[in-house]
């Protein structure tokens, strides 16, 4: 299905683990270093450099854009490294996260409690994904290089729902279907 940011509770209720989603609109990039800074600002009660309510954060550190390109290759990074930071952002109204790999129980609980969604993009399909990114602009922490916060405009960004508000987890369900071996 097609989905356009910002997301509200009605959008989130429609999503179930395993759904294929094509995402459109504005999303923000942040990974390890940027998350640490955002949480530091929240702890100090200071203003964040990006809007959070209804927004989607993409865990990515893109490659530099070649001349004439909007952005370089831009696939997802592994999400668990953001797990300690994520519940605080969801509590502030963050609606979606895009990454790869399983989340902590704390993140999954926050997704259910505050109505959010965790999507996976295909790790290593970074050149393909970059074709869905139509605009990119660094808006905070340029000194972090690939870890700076960027505002992206995306069109038909191909995603799959991993964790939904109903407590389903595609990583568990998908693997259970094909598991033939207990260690």
């Amino acid at each position, binding site marked *: 299905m097609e989905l356009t940011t910002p997301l509200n509770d009605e959008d989130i209720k429609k999503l179930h683990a395993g759904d294929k989603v094509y995402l459109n609109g504005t999303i923000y990039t942040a990974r390890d270093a940027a998350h640490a800074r955002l949480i530091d600002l929240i702890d100090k009660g200071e203003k964040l450099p990006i809007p959070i309510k209804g927004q989607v954060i993409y865990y990515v550190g893109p490659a530099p854009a070649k001349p004439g390109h909007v952005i370089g290759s831009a696939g997802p990074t592994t999400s668990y490294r953001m797990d300690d930071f994520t519940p605080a952002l969801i509590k502030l109204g963050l609606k979606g996260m895009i990454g790869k790999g399983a989340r902590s129980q704390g993140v999954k609980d926050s997704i259910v409690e505050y109505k959010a969604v965790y999507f996976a993009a295909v*790790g290593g399909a970074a050149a393909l994904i970059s074709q869905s990114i139509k605009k990119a602009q660094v808006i905070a922490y340029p000194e972090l290089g690939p870890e700076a916060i960027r505002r992206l405009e995306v069109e038909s960004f191909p995603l799959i729902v991993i964790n939904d508000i109903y407590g389903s987890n595609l990583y568990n369900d998908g693997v259970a279907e094909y*598991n033939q071996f207990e260690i």
Partner: protein
Amino acid sequence: MYFLIASKFISNEKVIFMREIKCLEITEAVADLVKDTNYHLPEDVMEAIRLGKEKEKSPVGKEIFRQILENNKIAGEKEMPICQDTGLVVIFLEIGNQVFIDGDIYQAINDGVRKGYKDGYLRKSVVEGPFNRINTADNTPAVIHTKIVSGKKLKITVAPKGGGSENMSIVKMLKPSDGIEGVKNLVLKTVQEAGANPCPPIIVGIGVGGSFEKAALLAKEALMRPLDDSNTDSTIAILEQDILEDINRLGIGPQGLGGTQTALAVKINTFPCHIASLPVAININCHVARHNEIVL
């Protein structure tokens, strides 16, 4: 270019011809290699991905394989990195004992990494300190492993390694009595716990034997082997096949979404070890299994 080392420096007065390789030539070669390997996968890896797509039973898994193949085609045609994580550069050097290098080879290599990552629009993914986390902004330094071999050639293998799969790798000192079953069990548990994190379909490099650090190096070297080779030791060749089959029965599948093709290959390199020890290292690589080499 060959030249004479003055005989007065040679204790037994023998005349020895050395082959000179210039640092500049090494820098250029490394710059070209890092770019090329980030844009194009080796043919054996591409073939393993194509085969994986045929064998995959899950429709979602097949679709992931299709996207990976399309991605790799776009990256090659547009000369852009296959993955945005263009890695920490690992380099294996085999330096012939009759090679004379006209300067600091490590500096020459890092100059090549710097040039290749800048000119090739590759991501700079290295921080100068494990705690200060300040990006070095040029992807240096590379991790360089050096071996002296006989001859007049210099072989440079470059293997940029992404963080996602490297983070899922381990070294464990098993007991000799743990044996083959102990190694198998450790590999399966490691792959299962890694799940979707290292971007399956993965390639598993395993080092068994040696010392603590030798096992890790064996595992990394195992990842440099062609995916379609077979181990010269028949016991180990069978073990590689057994572990591959068991991993693929775990059901993790492409991107951890469920399926029959979790790993494309398992490669095991071994070395003699202490009577008390059974060191095992497991180095996981993602499907973007980059490595490339040149012989100067």
